[in-house]
Each structure stands twice: as structure tokens, then as C-alpha cells.
């Protein structure tokens, strides 16, 4: 039956997740479910990509299908979650909360994968919410105070994002008169409220995508989440925000120079500022989180170009899909390397982990013959569509961004190396399984440029591989980092979470003020019923139980009501 795999893409992990919650399944079943969660998605992508599944009874009537960008997004999402699932097989060996971890993994994957199949806003929003709320369990999995705090910021910002997304979608659907996604961008473009809608969608999905200034949860959540969960958070779930932009922003229907510029500015700032913040981190996963914010900034630049020029939108989407795919696997490999480092007991293994981290770092920074290089050259070509003036600045900005990324990820490799040097025997866990799975992830990210040959349609803007010399900013970044370490340069530290920390402080402050000052006052209203009653009718006793006969004896009540019924019948004329 056509479309069965689409349904299974969501239903298999969903059913497995619910079963995990309700039944006491043996650990091996849980691990098996996590490792195989994306199998139906794989089949859907490769075997049956044109399937359509219509379900009128579901939600407000829904149809599942794989669009062009959706297919690429689902491909890397399924791939990365599978790697994380395999990795989790070994990572969770001694975890007493395996059940909770499995349930959250399966459910958030179901949402993450499902949203790429949605063709209407309701289904999309539903999957988005499922992913968001289930992922909370991944963030707080370890239950340490840091994890709880990160979880608080995560869920607070996620709800905030959901609110913006919901109102943006409501306005879009109202403008279009239908919830079908294909009809929304044009309707938004023609709507009198289009600026408001764009703002809501941009920042609403931006929370997930790590857009400046709503990115604060990432650097707090990543270090505390279990490593495979960090990998999918950063590799795949934040791409759901990007996908939301791709689907719902009205790019291609009109040119929005103002919003285009806003995206360019936010994206460029994020790309550079986050790189700086990342360089000053001491936790490798916080460093990677900033790398993700920085990379999402580069993708925001792509969105900005597409918004500023309607002609650029299709090319921008094609390119961004590829950029996301490349980043997903590379970032996944980097995160998994953090766990692999803990598994590397021997010197050869350490060298292997370090070399692999360098390779994955090169993929992100745009080193020669990597997917990153393809993405960067493509973006340079795409910046030709940008408004005059910007089209000259942008290529240089991208060069600086490559340099900054190289600096940032050099820091990561350095942190990794240091932690492996300082590790004690007791820290080792996971063993060959982790290393092996990580190697697989590495292979996937190295293979990305060759994937596009067969699987991903080549965006028109690809420039192909540049010469080795084109990669100079990357090497320069590495050299500058090495020099800075040698010279013991101490940049000003940015605490992980930056403005997110301020949001947390402010919200705790407001909550404390509310519970201690405002709420007690509301509990004691000055005017009560008794007050009014005593004023109106003096002499009514305030206390004391003068309960009457009707509540004491049921038979008496029965007699009363029976009489009442008889009287009623009599009044009706019988």
C-alpha cells in the first residue's frame, strides 16, 4: 500500500515510545527500538519517495507526503538519529534511567521525522510540539542541578517559541483560508499583516534554530544532555526550526529587502559573535553549541538572501537543505567524538579521535574537498543575489566566518585533547562500541559531498570544489589558534548561555516576586461574600453547622422529590 512507510515513519517510533512508557520492556528491546527507529523513514526516502497518504479523520484532516526539501531533511534526520541510537546502545550501558531516555528519544524522533512529512500547518505544529516537549526529557536526563536549570530555560524558551509559531501559523492560515502549507506563503505575502507574520515565524522557529537573540538555551542544554542526545539536538532538531522557515516564510513570492537585511544582520552577528563566545568555552559541548549557533547564523544569512530577492529563494532553499545535511552529519560526528574521547583508553585511539575531530571540524569549516566547502562556495554564489553593496560584503563575511569557525573548532580539538590527557582510568566507558559508531558517523560526514551525486539534487548555485588555496581561511584559523595558545592569549570569557542566563535570572526573580508579594495579596480578597452578606443581612450566624433534614436523611429527600414529581405531573394536568 502506498504511503504505508510514511505512516510507519511516525507510527513506529511513536508506538515504541508509548509502549516504553507503559510497559516494562527489557533493556535489549529498548536499545533495539532506538537503533531501528528510523528504518521506516529510510525506506520512505529511498524506496517510496512519491507516496502520499491521506487521512481525513486525523487531526483536522491531514495528508502526509515528502516534498523536495522535506526529503533531504528526513534523510539526514533519519541518518543522524540512527547513529545516535546505535551510539546510545553503548552509551547507556550503565544508565538506570534507560527507560526514560528511550521513551524521550523515540517520541522526540517521531515528532522530528513527522514534521517533514506534514503538508498542513496543524500536523506540522503537532509534530513540532511532540519533538519539543519530548526532548525536554533528554535535556534533563542526568537530573543534575545544571541539567534542571538548562531544562528550565529550554522549556521556557520552547513554550515561548511555540506561542510565536502558533500565532504566526494562525495568522497565516487565516490569511490563506486553508491550513495547507503550499498555500500559505503566497497568502502571507498578500496579507496586510505580513511583516508581523514574518516576525512571528522568524523568531518562533528561531528559538529552535538558535537564532540570535533567542539562542540562549543551546549552550546550556548541550553540555548537560547525554552525548547522543546533544548530537541530535544540534544536528537535527535545530534544523526543524530551519525547516519551519523554509516552509512557512513567504520567500519566493515577493522580495522582502527589509526582512532580508534583518536576517543577514542577525545571521552575520551570530556567525561571528557565537564563534567568539565558543572559543572562550571550557566545556567541549558548550563550544560545539556555539558552533551550532554560529553555523545556524550562516544559514540565516542564506534565508536572508532568499527573502531579500524572490528569485534567489528556490536556490537558497536547495542550498540550505544541503548546508543543513552537511552540518547535521558533521556536527553529529563532533558531538559523538566527545563521548568517543571517553572511550579512548589507548594512545592510538586518542590519536584517532583527535584526527577524526579535525576531519569533522574541517567539514564544518569548509576545508578542501568536504561538503562544507561545497556549501560555502554555493553560498558565495548565492550572495550574488543579495542587494547591491551587500553582494560585495557577503563573500568577505563568509571568508571571515570560515576563519572564525576554524578558530572555534580548533578550540574544540584542543579541549578534547586536553580532556583525554587528563582523563583517569575510571572515566573510561563505552569501549569499542562507541568508537565504532563514532567512526561510522565520521564516515557519513566525510561522504556527504559524494552523497549529493546520487541522492540530493544539486542546487543550481553550487560552485563545486575550489582549489586548495580557497581553503586558506580555514588553515589560517587553525594556525592563529595554535599561536594564541602558544602566546597564552586570554580572551574575555563569555559564560555558557550568555543572555540565556540573564533570562533565567530575570524569570526566577519575577517568579519569586510574584509568589511572595503578589499572590498572597490575591489570596485574601478584601471583599468576600460573607462581608457583603453580613452587610446586607445582619444576624445570620457566620459559623456552625445547621444542616437541615434534607441533607441528613436521604429518605426524607426522596419523599420530598417524589412529592415534587407528583406535583409537577399534577400541574401538567394529569
Amino acid at each position, binding site marked *: 500500500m502506498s504511503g504505508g512507510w510514511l505512516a510507519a515513519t511516525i507510527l513506529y517510533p511513536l508506538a515504541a515510545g508509548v509502549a516504553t512508557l507503559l510497559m516494562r520492556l527489557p533493556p535489549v528491546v529498548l536499545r533495539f527500538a532506538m537503533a531501528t527507529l528510523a528504518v521506516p523513514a529510510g525506506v520512505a526516502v529511498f524506496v517510496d519517495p512519491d507516496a502520499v497518504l491521506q487521512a481525513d*479523520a*486525523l487531526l483536522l484532516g491531514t495528508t502526509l507526503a515528502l516534498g523536495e526539501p522535506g526529503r533531504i531533511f528526513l534523510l539526514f534526520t533519519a541518518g543522524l538519529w540512527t547513529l545516535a541510537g546505535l551510539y546510545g546502545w553503548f552509551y547507556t550501558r550503565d544508565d538506570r534511567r534507560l527507560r526514560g531516555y528511550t521513551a524521550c528519544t523515540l517520541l522526540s524522533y517521531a515528532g522530528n521525522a513527522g514534521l517533514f512529512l506534514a503538508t498542513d500547518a496543524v500536523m506540522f505544529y503537532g509534530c513540532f510540539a511532540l519533538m519539543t516537549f519530548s526532548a525536554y526529557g533528554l535535556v534533563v536526563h542526568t537530573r543534575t542541578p545544571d541539567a534542571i536549570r538548562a531544562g528550565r530555560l529550554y*522549556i521556557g524558551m520552547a513554550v515561548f517559541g511555540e506561542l510565536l509559531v502558533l*500565532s504566526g501559523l494562525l495568522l497565516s492560515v*487565516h490569511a490563506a483560508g486553508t491550513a495547507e502549507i503550499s498555500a500559505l506563503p503566497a497568502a502571507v505575502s498578500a496579507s496586510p499583516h505580513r511583516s508581523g507574520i514574518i516576525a512571528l515565524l522568524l523568531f518562533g522557529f528561531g528559538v529552535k534554530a538558535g537564532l540570535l537573540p533567542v539562542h540562549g538555551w543551546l549552550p546550556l542544554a548541550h553540555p548537560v544532555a547525554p552525548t547522543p542526545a546533544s548530537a541530535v539536538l544540534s544536528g537535527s532538531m535545530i534544523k526543524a526550526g530551519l525547516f519551519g522557515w523554509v516552509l512557512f516564510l513567504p520567500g519566493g513570492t515577493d522580495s522582502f529587502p527589509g526582512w532580508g537585511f534583518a536576517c543577514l544582520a542577525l545571521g552575520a552577528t551570530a556567525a561571528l559573535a557565537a564563534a567568539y563566545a565558543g572559543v572562550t568555552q571550557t566545556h567541549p559541548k558548550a563550544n560545539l553549541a556555539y558552533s551550532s549557533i554560529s553555523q545556524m547564523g550562516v544559514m540565516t544569512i542564506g534565508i536572508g538572501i532568499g527573502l531579500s530577492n524572490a528569485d534567489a529563494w528556490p536556490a537558497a532553499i536547495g542550498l540550505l537543505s544541503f548546508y543543513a545535511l552537511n552540518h547535521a552529519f558533521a556536527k553529529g560526528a563532533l558531538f559523538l567524538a566527545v563521548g568517543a574521547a571517553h572511550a579512548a583508553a589507548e594512545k592510538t585511539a586518542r590519536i584517532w579521535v583527535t584526527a577524526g575531530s579535525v576531519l569533522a571540524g574541517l567539514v564544518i569549516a569548509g576545508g578542501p574537498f568536504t561538503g562544507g566547502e561545497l556549501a560555502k562556495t554555493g553560498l558565495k554564489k548565492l550572495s550574488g543575489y543579495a542587494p547591491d553593496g551587500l553582494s560585495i560584503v557577503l563573500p568577505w563575511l563568509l571568508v571571515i566566518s570560515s576563519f572564525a569557525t576554524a578558530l572555534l573548532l580548533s578550540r574544540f580539538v584542543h579541549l578534547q585533547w586536553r580532556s583525554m590527557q587528563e582523563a583517569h582510568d575510571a572515566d573510561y566507558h563505552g569501549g569499542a562500541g562507541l568508537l565504532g559508531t563514532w567512526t561510522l558517523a565520521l564516515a557519513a560526514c566525510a561522504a556527504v559531498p559524494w552523497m549529493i551525486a546520487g541522492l540530493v539534487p544539486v542546487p543550481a548555485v553550487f560552485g563545486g570544489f575550489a582549489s586548495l588555496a580557497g581553503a586558506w581561511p580555514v588553515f589560517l584559523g587553525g594556525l592563529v589558534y595554535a599561536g594564541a595558545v602558544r602566546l597564552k592569549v586570554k580572551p574575555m570569557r563569555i559564560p555558557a548561555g550568555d543572555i540565556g542566563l540573564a533570562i533565567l535570572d530575570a524569570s526566577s526573580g519575577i517568579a519569586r516576586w510574584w509568589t511572595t508579594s503578589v499572590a498572597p495579596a490575591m489570596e485574601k480578597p478584601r471583599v468576600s461574600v460573607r462581608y457583603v452578606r453580613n452587610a446586607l443581612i445582619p444576624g445570620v450566624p457566620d459559623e456552625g453547622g445547621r444542616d437541615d433534614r434534607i441533607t441528613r436523611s436521604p429518605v426524607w429527600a426522596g419523599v420530598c422529590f*417524589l412529592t415534587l414529581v407528583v406535583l409537577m405531573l399534577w400541574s401538567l394536568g394529569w
Partner: protein
Amino acid sequence: MNAWLPIAVVASSLVTGIVIFFLPEHRRGVRSLLNIAGALLKLFFVGWMAVGMIRGETYESRFSIILGFDFLLKADPLAMLLVGLSSVLWLLTTIYAIGYLEGWKNRSRFFGFFSFCVTASVGVALAGNPITFFIFYEFLTLSTYPLVVHRGTDEALRAGRTYLWYTMAGGALVFVGTVWLHVLVGSVDFTEAGVLRFMDASLYPQFSIIFFILIAGLGVKAALVPLHGWLPVAMVAPAPVSALLHAVAVVKAGAFGIVRVVYDLYGVAFADARGLLTPLMLAAGFTIVYGSVRALTQDDLKRRLAFSTVSQVSYIALGVSMLGPLATIGGLVHLVHQGLMKITLFFCAGIFAETVHVKKISAMNGIGRRFPWTMGAFTIGALGMIGVPPVAGFVSKWHLGLGALGSGNGLVILVLLASTALNAGYFLPILYRAWFRDPDGPWDEHMPVRRAEAPLLLLVPCIITAALSLAAGLLAGSEWSPLALARIIASREYVP
């Protein structure tokens, strides 16, 4: 036969109630049998009526009573919305109550009034004109009072008095409005798309006054702020009573009355043209935000749920107060959705209170480990209240949001957003405690071995209502969903 069916629907619980009063306290088996039989019988009659209505039958019982009033019971789609909800939830609540009141005193009294309460609620739904509505509306007040004070403690009796003061005053207002209307236009029946718009234009100013009198009277039971004071107090009642009060009977009677007055007495277009809807919308919007704000800081679980009810029931009034089919659908469907979700939450609260004596939210740490099914049901209800798809609450919110935009009340979106945020603010911490904290209460954190986590009579109804809350949203597009019925009703209220 068609004239008898509405009466049979009402009588099936009335007779049960009266018979139960004459049963000695210790005849538990007979009483339970009667209760269940009555509930099933009602469900059967309702089902019969529903099938008949789909086939195009009409069901109406009309008698003349004193002073030229007609006593009229009539089944229309709107009535079926509440009748269906009441009869399904009555069956479940009865089962729950049988399990809950195990070992309590005065059970005959309890179940007698319990049956009356549902009788009144079904009567309110089927009432075909204002006077019949009023009769059942007051009957509801009287039959719920003994339930509220059932424990007989000082606190309960105090709460009962507060409850009576509020509801009797509200009833008096409804009575004044009804009589005034009767004096002006004689006996009028509830008619789809309204009836007062056909009257003489010189009466319009008086109609406006009557509107506000009626809404104020109904607003007491619907817990519109500032008339909501009784609701948080009344949660001293036993859990099944709270569940019924908050989901089906009392607050729904008020909200349903508002629906009837706006749509079938005045007509929504007429009410809108006379500028009557805007004040209602403001009151509803304020109530939604206020109730949620108050809920935020309550540590008593039932009290938090009570303030949540204050907030959520006004979604119905909010949907009613906006002109446009989508808003209507959103409001009407929430009548059912809120009932399903809130009854689930109260069932859960009752299970915690009865089995491990946990009543405070601060004592709920890790309770999900001891009660995975109960807490699972609670989670569904809570997420639904927040408006997370695919639980039913989302469907309501989505339609209300679109309806607000469609009727040009874009700012109402802000109310919905604020409510969503606040609901998340007071439900998510509960979920966090229950699922993610380690148990530290005095109760045994381990699930009983080879036994369900709670008595099945309590657990099963709770799981069923949770499943229904989920299904109502997940399968909203099917022709058997509450949404489908709400769509039918809305299409009939906007006939030109």
C-alpha cells in the same frame, strides 16, 4: 414515542435517584446496580435519540404548565452536545464514585443526589425554552448542594453556604430575566439562529438589559470573574463531585445557558448588532487570564485545577462572544473538550488523594513512578489544557484563534497566547515534579506487585476519559468527533 424519548432521557436518572433514597445504607450491591443500570439506560436512550436524529426524526415533549408557561424538552444538535457529554461522563463518574466512596458514610444520600445532578444537567441541555431551562437550572443548584457538603465538616458546610449564596443569587437573576422576557414577548422557544430579532424594535433596549441580567445570572455558574468565588471553595467536595461539577454539571450548565441565550434566544448576529457581545468577550477574556494567574500559585492540586476551570470554561463564552462560525465551533467544541480533559484531571487528583493521600502539588515528587497510568492520563489532560496537539484542547484553541481573526478580534489571540503560557506555567511544573523528580514523600514509591496501581474502579474511568480527550483531538476530522457535531451546530446557527 418521539415525545417520550426526551422525558425518558431525563427520567432515567431521576427515577434512579428517587429509588436510591429509599435504599438502606448497606445495600451497596443493589445501589451500584441501580446506578449503573440507570446510567446505561440513559446512554441507551441518548444513543437511540442520536441515531433517530441522524435519520431526520425530531424529538420534542411539550406540556402546558401554570401561568401560561410551556414545559418543553427538545432534542436539537446543540442539546445533544451536552446530553452526550453528560450521559457518557455520568456513567464513568458513577463507576468512579462507587470505587471512591468505598467505606464512606451516607452513600445512599450521595448517590441519590448524584443522580439528580445529572438529571438536572440533562434537563438543562434538553430544555426547549427559558422557563424549562430555569427549572432545571435551579434543580441543579439544589441537587448539587448536598454533594458539595457531603463530608459534613465545618469547612464543607461553609463552602456549601458560599456555594448556595452564589448560585441562588445567580438563579434569582436568571429568574428575573426569564420572567421579564415572558412579560414582554410571551412564551418563546429556543430557536436556532435566534428568536428575539423578530420582535418589535421598540423592545430592543429592554432586551439589552435582559441580556445582561441573564448573562450575569448564568455567569455565576459559568464562573465568570467576579462571579467565580464559589468554585475554588467548592472543591472541598469529594473528587467525583468536583469532577462532575467542573466537567459536566454546574459550570457547563452556566456556559451552556450562555450559549443558548446568545444563539437560540437572541441570535448571535442580532446580539452582535446590538453590541451585546463585546462586554461578554471582555469578561470572558479577563476571566481566562485571571483564572490562570490565580492557578499559578496554588499548591493544593484540586484548588489549582479549580482555578484552571475558571479559566478554561470561559473559552466557551469567548467563542460564543465572537461572530463567525469558526469562533462558534471553537467555543462549542470546548464544551465537550474541557469536560473530557478536566474530568480526567480531577479523577487523577482523586486517585492520588485516596490511595496515597497526596493533595499538595509539592508532595507529588516522583509520583509518576508509583502511578504511571494515572500520571499518564494526567499528562494528557494537562497537555490538552495547555493546547498541545494532538490533545483535544488544541482543536478548541485553533478554532478560537481562527475565529478571533475571522471576526476581527485579533487581540483575542493575545488572550489565547497568555492563557497558553500560563497553563504551561502551572501544569508543566506538575509534570516535571511527577516525572522527573525522585520520590521523597511518605508513601511507598514502588508500584504494588501483581496489582494495579490504584483500584480499577478509579483507574479505568480515568484512563477512558484520558483516551477520549486524546481521541477527540487526534481524530477531530472524523464524522463522529465532537468537532463534527460542533460544525453541524455552527452551520445551523448562521442561517440567514
